[in-house]
């Protein structure tokens, strides 16, 4: 790891000032994605700006039909707290199956989505739940936020402060996980709210995406059978040591059907 200057700002405004003044400043949240990247020298910042001392970035609250999760909230809290389990149970379950307990004790929501790994589990949840990413300067719809592999719509110096998750009527996430890393080879998040259905897929392309054909079929009939005949084209899907594009296309269908069956069986908690 190269040397860098280290800063511990106390406010969002101070953090942004330090970042803009630095030659190559990088924010750090939990560091579970960034520290490995520093070790590999894939990221070589002149200045590391730690967000941990800024008040108000961690915590979870419910505001009417929205679950608001602070950007610095640890995965362990999203997975373990009743406020999440009682609002969007499958979001808690999804986060509880990410990585392992010691990673979840450090990793944060904001860090995870800013990293935007194309096989990560949070992005399909944000996309299918039509979450809003709140930053220090604006609000960004999840559909505009994830723009490519390890790429987001964040501007230079912008800091994620929270994510607003509208609470769905039904939701479920099913992934086919790599047994070593627990990353999704393919993961599908299905959510239904006021008759509208969203199906978001991770792990299968360089960026998380929605599968419109399945969404339309599920709006007519929210059953696994409704999407049985819908097959994703293998064109453009990821090929790596874990699976061919054709294999991933098949997995999308299987995971989506399982997610629909699970979501349909779990209506929104009272």
């Amino acid at each position: 790891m190269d040397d860098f200057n280290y800063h511990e700002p106390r406010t969002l405004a101070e953090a942004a000032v330090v970042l803009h003044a630095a030659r190559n400043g990088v924010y750090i949240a939990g560091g579970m994605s960034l520290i490995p990247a520093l070790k590999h020298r894939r990221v070589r910042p002149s200045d590391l700006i730690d967000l941990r001392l800024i008040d108000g970035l961690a915590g979870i609250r419910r505001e009417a039909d929205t679950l608001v999760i602070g950007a610095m909230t640890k995965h362990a809290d999203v997975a373990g707290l009743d406020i999440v389990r009682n609002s969007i149970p499958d979001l808690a379950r999804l986060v509880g199956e990410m990585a392992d307990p010691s990673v979840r004790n450090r990793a944060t929501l904001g860090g995870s989505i800013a990293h935007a790994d194309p096989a990560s589990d949070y992005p399909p949840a944000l996309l299918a739940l039509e979450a809003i990413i709140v930053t220090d300067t604006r609000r960004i719809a999840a559909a505009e936020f994830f723009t490519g592999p390890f790429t987001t719509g964040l501007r230079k110096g912008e800091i994620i402060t929270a994510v607003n998750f509208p609470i769905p009527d039904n939701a479920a996430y099913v992934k086919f996980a790599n047994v070593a890393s627990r990353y999704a080879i393919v993961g599908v998040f299905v959510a239904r709210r006021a008759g509208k259905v969203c199906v978001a897929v991770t792990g299968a392309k360089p960026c998380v995406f929605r599968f419109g054909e399945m969404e339309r079929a599920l709006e007519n009939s929210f059953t696994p059978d409704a999407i049985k005949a819908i097959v994703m084209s293998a064109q453009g899907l990821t090929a790596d040591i874990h699976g061919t594009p054709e294999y991933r296309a098949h997995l999308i269908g299987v995971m989506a059907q399982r997610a629909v069956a699970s979501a349909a069986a779990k209506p929104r908690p009272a």
Partner: protein
Amino acid sequence: MARVSIKVNGKDEACEIKPRTLLVEFLRDHLGLTGTHVGCDTTQCGCCIVLIDGKAVNSCTMLAVQANGADVTTIEGLADGGKLHPMQAAFREHHALQCGFCTPGFIMSALELVAKKKNPTEADIRYGLLGNMCRCTGYENIIKAVKAGAEAMARVG
């Protein structure tokens, strides 16, 4: 350089360090606490797990500056003089180690899982130890040891 002040096993340690110093380097190289091991150095094996404010974390994937002001417990902080902590004693009793390299990390993870749930089931233990790898034992004796260690800790109170 950055100044850190970290409580390690109950003792305040203040040091000037390079900001890039990993917590595990701080513990091993600056404080000489070599019971915390570096196995994979990539957040996968769990050999470097320590407790920070009671939570199990990989000290190879945390900068020491991020632990500034925190309370860290390493494997060296568990025994009471020559008397092993009940979880350490259970690992020895149940032959839950062979080479012992992964053991400190397993024990620290086990302590967090028992702190969260006093009488963990086998499923709780397997879920709680997902971030720890052992290449010797095949895990069965580790599961038994954690269960016995949890029971012994409950008896001690």
